[in-house]
């Protein structure tokens, strides 16, 4: 049966809606805070060849693109002849899934009238997979937790109880993890049911027609965008803190007729600690950076992602091979867009932002009853993970976003919810004035946080920060963003990365980085400088130093603000 263009268009919209429903179901049923509060997940539908046809907009770029490649691995590992109705597959392989053991990917084949018509896949970041726990401290992937190779979780409807027992026996929160695995399975099931409804409505036996329609249109649209770019090549470079030694990321972006190549030759080698990044995750963010710049509205699928290619020498930090430790691969991954932008800005000036905070400012606290003195009877152990953001880089026409994740797509949690999760106290979470790099457009502000424990507790903090020594650098004369700082409230110095002890009664005081500025600060609209001063985004000192505001002007503005003028 042939279908009209209008019918195919309706089907394409429907598939995007189906995967969105799939993702929403996951948000609502998952147990891990990372999924349900922060949105660290992804969902998609694939054809029988494993080509991704549609992906939910809910989710974060690291999954978005990495998952596109995953289903082909499943087909290869399971073997076509073994793909049966009622099966559900699982893995957390960092190299064939989405980059670390903490992401569980599940794939469900979809059968219609007894014939395989496609696959559904979804991925979620789970809070614990055993091993050393979430952090950079492992020396190899073996220490980072339980490894689940691509295998059947359910065989024709029967769950592999041996597997679930092994999983339960190896993780800290077995009920939660098993709950999450079932949530992933359920979300694929919801997608499958809705796909079959659609196939019945349009009288489809296979997805071949609609797949061709989606992929052809997406490929053509993406290639049109690439064809509009100059055929040239440019290099970008950026150095960040790393764990013990700084890491230099280097990329050459080359625009070809039918694809853009990002080549990471020259990038630093592996780190001893778990901040290494498998190529699949590097590719996800390199691709995201280019796609958001030149083809933002083209939906993600195999054809719209394919023209964004990547290469990197083996065992550089952006192409870590087994058994490198990779738990915190997001730190390097989140910096990839900045370095790609540094190159791309030379190819198409005036399109991409200045450097920003880059990686999320996450930390995990492990609380326990105090050990230096008798603890109260109700003191308890607890693990609390929080997601926080610095400022994004200034854009050519707009200021950077204050305390907003970029390139990651995750959300923060309410501190009232965090304080219900364990005996932790967040004493402060607010914007950090003067941390946005000066410029014609200003970098986004970072934020201050202060964290302590309820009386009777001490804790370890697992810091996962960067940009302590290497702030975001401005573009076209813009100033650099504020650096990360971390110390205890009595002045005791702390490191931007790693697990560190905090005694009873002490707080950790953190300042998260700002984004860099764009363009000469002297060209900034004076009205915006006044507004920033009135709001306290910049201090009087910065207003004078960076933007040349006179003492009288400053005094007038502050006086007017105190009288309630809003600027």
């Amino acid at each position, binding site marked *: 049966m042939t279908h009209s263009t209008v019918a195919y268009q309706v089907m394409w919209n*429907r598939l995007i809606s189906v995967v969105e429903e799939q993702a929403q*179901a996951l948000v609502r049923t998952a*147990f891990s805070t990372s999924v349900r509060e922060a949105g660290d997940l992804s969902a998609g539908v694939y054809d029988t060849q494993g080509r991704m046809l549609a992906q939910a907009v809910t989710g974060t770029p690291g999954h978005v693109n990495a998952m596109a490649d995953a289903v082909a691995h499943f087909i290869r590992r399971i073997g076509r002849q073994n793909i049966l109705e009622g099966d559900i597959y699982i893995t957390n392989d960092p190299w064939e899934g989405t980059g670390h053991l903490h992401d569980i990917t599940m794939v469900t084949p979809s059968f219609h009238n007894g014939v395989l018509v496609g696959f559904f896949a979804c991925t979620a970041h789970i809070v614990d997979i055993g091993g050393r726990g979430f952090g950079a401290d492992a020396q190899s992937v073996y220490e980072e937790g339980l490894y689940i190779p691509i295998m059947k979780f359910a065989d024709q409807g029967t769950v592999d109880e041996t597997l679930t027992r092994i999983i339960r026996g190896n993780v800290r929160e077995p009920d939660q993890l098993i709950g999450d695995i079932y949530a992933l399975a359920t979300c694929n099931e919801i997608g499958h049911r809705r796909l079959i409804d659609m196939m019945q409505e349009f009288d489809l036996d296979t997805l071949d027609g609609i797949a061709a329609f989606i992929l052809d249109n997406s490929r053509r649209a993406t290639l049109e965008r690439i064809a509009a770019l100059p055929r040239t090549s440019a290099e970008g470079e950026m150095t960040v803190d790393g764990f013990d030694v700084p890491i230099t990321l280097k990329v050459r972006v080359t625009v070809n007729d039918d694809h853009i190549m990002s080549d990471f030759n020259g990038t630093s080698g592996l780190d001893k600690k778990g901040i290494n990044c498998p190529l699949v995750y590097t590719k996800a963010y390199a691709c995201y950076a280019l796609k958001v710049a030149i083809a933002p*509205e*083209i939906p993600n699928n195999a054809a719209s992602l394919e023209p964004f290619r990547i290469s990197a020498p083996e065992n550089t930090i952006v192409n870590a091979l087994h058994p490198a430790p990779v738990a915190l691969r997001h730190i390097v991954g989140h910096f990839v867009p900045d370095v790609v932008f540094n190159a791309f800005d030379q190819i198409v000036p005036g*399109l991409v932002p200045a450097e920003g905070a880059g990686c999320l400012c996450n930390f995990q606290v492990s609380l326990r009853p105090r050990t230096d003195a008798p603890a109260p009877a109700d003191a308890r152990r607890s693990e609390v993970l929080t997601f926080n953001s610095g400022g994004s880089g200034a854009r050519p026409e707009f200021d950077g976003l204050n305390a907003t994740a970029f390139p990651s797509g995750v959300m923060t949690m309410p501190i009232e919810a965090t304080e219900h999760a364990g005996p932790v106290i967040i004493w402060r*979470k607010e914007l950090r004035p003067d941390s946005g790099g000066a410029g014609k457009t200003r970098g986004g502000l970072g934020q201050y946080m202060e964290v302590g424990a309820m009386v009777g507790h001490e804790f370890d903090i697992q810091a996962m920060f960067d940009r302590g020594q290497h702030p975001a650098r401005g573009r076209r004369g813009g100033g650099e963003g504020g650096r990360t700082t971390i110390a205890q409230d009595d002045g005791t110095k702390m490191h931007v990365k790693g697990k560190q002890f905090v005694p009873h009664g002490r707080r950790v005081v953190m300042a998260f980085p700002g984004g860099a500025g764009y363009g000469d600060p002297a060209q900034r609209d004076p009205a915006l400088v006044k507004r920033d001063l009135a709001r306290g985004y910049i201090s009087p000192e910065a207003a004078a130093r960076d933007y040349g505001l006179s003492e009288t002007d400053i005094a007038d503005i502050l006086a007017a603000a105190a009288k309630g003028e809003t600027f």
Partner: protein
Amino acid sequence: MTAHSTRLGVDIGGTFTDVVLETGGASFSTKVLTTYAAPENAIIDGMHQVCTKAGITPAQIEQIIHGTTLATNALIERRGAKTALITTQGFRDVIEMRTESRFEQYDLNLTLPDPLLPRQMRFTVSERVNAKGEVMIPLDRAEVEELAERIAATGVESIAVGLIHSYLNPDHERLVRDVLADKLPGVSVSISAEVSPQMREYERFNTVVANAYIKPLMASYLGRLEERLKGEGVTCRIFLMHSGGGIISIQNAADFPVRLVESGPAGGAVFAAHIAARYGIDKVLSFDMGGTTAKICLIKNQTPKTSRVFEVARTYRFKKGSGMPISIPVIDMVEIGAGGGSLAHVDAMRQIRVGPESAGSEPGPACYGRDGTRPAVTDADLVLGKLDPDNFAGGSIPLYPDQSKTALHKHIGGTLDMDATEAAFGVAEVVDENMANAARVHAVENGEDLSEYTMIAFGGAAPLHAARLCEKLGVDRLLVPPGAGVGSAIGFLRAPYSFEANRSVYMKLSDFDGPRIRDLLTELQGEATGFVRTCDAVSPILSEFKVYMRYTGQGWEIPIDLTEEQAMNPDAATFQARFEEDYAKLFGRTVAGMDIEITVWSVNATTPPEKVTPIAAQPATDAAATTGTRDIFDAASGAFAQADIIDRTTLTSGQTITGPAAVTEDETTIIIPASRTAMRQPDGCIDITAGGRP
């Protein structure tokens, strides 16, 4: 409330103010243009029009029920009062930092909406309550007094107070209020523990700020309205429709104006719920489509589904997360940018996209002939024969099909190599699919199967698209009520007095504390009932108990209804059973071995719903008389077919119509596709069903 025989319903919308008068079993309605500068003028005007039609004086009106978009518009257009926020030290920027995420990940130039209050209007005090509700840092009265003086210098009219964990312990917020009352007597004060005592600081602070921001405006408007109506001879009390689908006194409305947000759409849902009750239908999907947006609501057991948080003033293509969250009891509706005026274009993938950009009323769709050159949904409807160019809006607005064809060709057909008809079909299918997808996602989120549902459609554009939506959703029955153009105002007259009180208090079932639950629910019941009693001193008041529960560790609570017996004799096993039952229904399975927790407690006090007269089964009589025929495009078969044209005003009960057909009236046209047949019911509803004759 049926005791009131003469009642006036007034809905102030963005364009029109709808007024409905019911007296002695008859109903009179009018639409007048909304008068933004002084909205009460339109009400007075409309009231006199319907009183004249009914032959009564304003003094004979026994009750006035009012709903308005003024509160919503003030938030969208930022026309509120000069307002300050007082919050806990360390949390000055909560309403600005939002969720720290981008609601659209593929836009490098994304800008986030400004918070209602700029940073210099947000002040802090040193104090702190912990997650158990215990004071860790006491609040110093002298510090608040000093702050009050600083704030006074800004010339504020209104102050919001939002402190961390105040939903557990409101003492500090109350102390701030007392000091402000003392120091700044003319300034209105809203505290978060009263406006929205729910966990999650961003939602709660934003809600109390929104309340404070619109409070002076709404208080002044409501005061003026009362005076003006008195001046026109009105002697009865005035009540306000709230977003939760009930009515409250004018005084409560002035204190909690944020509860008036979305009162108009809530009236529409109540209108649909009342029709559902008349027909005894338990599962209804209400579908309201106007010029710029479509709204969809699930109504189960004749009660619209409610939620405790929603988003107002979305700034980015109606996208989730681009507005501001308001945590109050609200009828849960999905709103998408799809209406008669929604504009169509072709995107980079050569796909037709429709909305959310709208042609508005000026220039309007291309067919209005007012220099609109881009094709809107109405243009597609016209080209497909669904509208009669000579009888649009009762013949008052001539339509130009050629202009529609030109616009469709230029912006759609030319690019995609389609003729005007196929382009129009594409536009209509895309907008219908968008609405159908929104309905499907909403149903999935609520664990509902739409094929068991009946649709009730109202709003100017809904009857043109409703039957196609039913085909797409597998919905077999569609009711199009009369008076659909003023549905919200009619809905106001059907709403009970009600007030929902709720509070966030965490409790795990493993730490189940029956007496504490009974005390808490009794307190909430007392609070809610107190509000309702100020409206109605005599009627019985029913209490609806609801708790929000989840597995410990999850972030998404599901609402669980409890009977009064279950609420007042709480027992962990019953709570668990009720949760597992609903959880399994929503998500297919329960999770063994996980603790369950309760996060929010709520009691809705309401007067009993108005008694309805059930519609008696109506046998089919004869086929309706046609006034002619017209070729109308049938989407399911993908071709034009000759359709009968029927004048709705000539239809009598039991008369039947076989699709394809179009039932015309002044306000709209009801399209009955080839897959459906219809019958006029005794109450004037057009009852459209799948398949053979009804």
